């Protein structure tokens, strides 16, 4: 499984380099002596070689190495390239594409013949190629199967917007009488609209990206940071297959950069120090993604030295005037959360704190903006964990939609135990009843005899289980159980403290997704029916 994962990354990354290589070769064809371009060509082939070696694709690595040798000569001006040599590199690039598509192996007779022929040339001095009257005709490399394309994210957004606008046309359909519209045309319109809605939903899913790809963004940076700080660090990604909205991931890019940078710079100890402490020489940073119900949990952990508690104590004393006795009364969580205070980072720079504070308030703000929370766990010499819980990111979820007063609301289907008609018996079956109408301050004049939605108990829930009666909320009318495209709350909606996200229905309408835990936690609003 791990190997497959890395092979996928290898194919994605190498294909990118090889596409770029074609572009640079076209440039160098027009300026054969441009050493900088030869340097670029060298760099791209070297990158492919490095990844191939890491995955033990030795045939591919050896072939890259032979091409690199020639690049180096042209880069340094030791040999003079000509058009025939550039063609040799074009041929070599095509062969590299076949190698990459075959995960480091080629088997097509044409490819094997091409490999033999190019290797024969690469074994010679480049000057020897100059003397040849005609370029060698090599078999055309088998074109690789096109099974993926790179698409600009803006294009996806534009397609989504376009399809949504077409859907909105439905709302402008003039009212037609039965005389004016035949049954056949009516069916055709309904079918057309239904197909369009399906298309929109599928397009929406193009906005999802695997966490693995998100984590891969940091691999090179961590490697560079590790070198700068003279650390030996590896990044592991768990739950990389979980798909998350690219917009959410983009907003998390900077905060995660800070977290990972801090982990390398201040968490992971130098190798000698680690060995002396009985730890593995190589420090480990793990980016883990999980879905717990409606929450995306992202954890960044390292096995380094942990947060510098002396520095936190010094901050509490100097900046907040706390005594040691007062500090002792602070819970571990409160103590560690001090690093998220806005002025902690500047103090960190001037008083040479461990540095964990740098940017931590920025991270906390970014997560709050997304309606999420962050917990910090840290043990001296064991490591630090940042657990970030984010509400529903863009994804397709099933939810029970209902109307209450003037509002269209939803609860994730996974949270619904049962729906019953609102009558005395039903309301007495629940041990706790939330007066959602009062909680949301809906217009009481609209109250109708509706339904009770009994919410399900979850492992982390504050709610009583269905066997205990569960938590009940009322609904004027149930609209159905349907898929919603769930997107995160903005900053303003997050302030209400009741919603988990905003759901977009297939027809583009909006429903507010309630967070049952937050409803339960809304103090003073729960009436107990016992």
């Amino acid at each position, binding site marked *: 499984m791990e190997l497959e994962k890395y092979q996928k990354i290898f194919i994605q990354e190498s294909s990118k380099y090889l596409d770029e290589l074609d572009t640079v070769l076209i440039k160098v064809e027009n300026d054969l002596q441009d050493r900088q371009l030869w340097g670029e060509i060298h760099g791209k082939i070297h990158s492919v070689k490095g990844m191939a070696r890491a995955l033990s694709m030795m045939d591919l690595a050896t072939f890259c190495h032979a091409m690199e040798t020639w690049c180096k000569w042209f880069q340094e001006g030791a040999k003079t390239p000509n058009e025939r040599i550039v063609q040799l590199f074009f041929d070599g690039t095509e062969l590299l594409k076949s190698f990459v598509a075959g995960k480091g192996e080629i088997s097509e007779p044409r490819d094997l013949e091409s490999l033999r022929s190019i290797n024969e040339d690469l074994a010679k001095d480049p000057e020897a190629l100059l003397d040849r009257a005609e370029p060698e005709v090599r078999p055309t490399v088998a074109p690789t199967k096109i099974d993926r394309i790179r698409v600009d994210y803006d294009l996806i*957004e534009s397609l*989504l*917007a376009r399809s*949504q*606008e077409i859907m909105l046309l439905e*709302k*402008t359909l003039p009212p037609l009488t039965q005389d004016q519209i035949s049954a056949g045309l009516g069916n055709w319109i309904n079918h057309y609209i239904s197909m369009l809605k399906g298309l929109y939903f599928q397009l929406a899913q193009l906005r999802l990206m695997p966490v693995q790809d998100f984590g891969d963004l940091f691999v090179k940076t961590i490697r560079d940071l590790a070198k700068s700080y003279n650390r030996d660090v590896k990044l592991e990604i768990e739950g990389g297959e979980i798909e998350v909205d690219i917009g959410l991931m983009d907003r998390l890019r900077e905060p995660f950069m800070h977290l990972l940078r801090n982990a390398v710079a201040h968490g992971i100890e130098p190798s000698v120090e680690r060995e002396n402490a009985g730890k593995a020489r190589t420090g480990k940073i793990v980016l883990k993604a999980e879905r717990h119900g409606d929450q995306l949990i992202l954890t960044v952990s390292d096995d380094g030295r942990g947060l510098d508690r002396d520095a936190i104590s010094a901050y509490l004393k100097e900046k907040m005037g706390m005594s040691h006795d007062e500090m002792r009364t602070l819970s571990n969580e409160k103590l560690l959360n001090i690093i998220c205070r806005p002025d902690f980072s500047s103090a960190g720079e001037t008083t040479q704190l461990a540095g964990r504070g740098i940017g931590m308030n920025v991270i906390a703000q970014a997560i709050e903006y997304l309606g999420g929370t962050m917990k910090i766990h840290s043990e001296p010499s064991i490591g630090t964990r940042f657990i970030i819980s984010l509400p529903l990111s863009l994804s397709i979820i099933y939810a029970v939609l209902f109307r209450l007063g*003037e*509002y*269209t609301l939803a609860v994730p289907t996974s949270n619904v135990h049962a729906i019953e008609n609102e009558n005395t018996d039903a309301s007495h079956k629940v041990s706790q009843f939330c007066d959602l109408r009062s*909680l*949301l*301050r*809906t217009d009481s004049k609209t109250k109708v005899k509706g339904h009770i939605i009994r919410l399900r108990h979850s492992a982390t829930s504050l709610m009583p289980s269905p066997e205990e009666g569960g938590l009940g909320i009322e609904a004027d009318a149930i609209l159905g159980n349907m898929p919603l495209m769930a*997107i995160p709350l*903005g*900053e*303003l*909606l997050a*302030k*209400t*403290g*009741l919603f988990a996200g*905003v759901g*977009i229905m297939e027809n*583009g*309408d*909006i429903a*507010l997704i309630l967070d049952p835990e937050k409803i339960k936690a*809304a103090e003073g*609003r729960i009436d107990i029916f016992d």
Partner: protein
Amino acid sequence: MDIFIFEAAGQYFGFEAKYIYRIADNVIIVPVPLMPACHEGLIYYRGDLFDVIDMGRLMENEVLTLHDDPYIILLKWNAGKMGLIPDRIVGMKWIEDNGGTGTVFNERGDMVKVMTPDGIWKKLAGLAYGT
């Protein structure tokens, strides 16, 4: 710079035109509970969710005009996005760059308060929300 001018609660307001994403109409605004009175609701427009704010209520905290099918000025800037409901859209005016805020005068000598989306957002963030 070009200033987009509109009227709300008897006052003239302006934004630098670069912040204007679209002017939308005929869009259903979905009400959200527990929001301040000036928060008219949400719209989902071209893949983005916009908080829609009644400028009259935000600036004066009272209803001056009832909007049946309002124009919504959709703003997008680096920190966010929102929609504003004016009483009336006036038009565009070119003024010397004053850093995005301050007061200018239109052709009739009316005072136009030039704002930034961030300024409005800060005002919104300072209001009371929730239970």
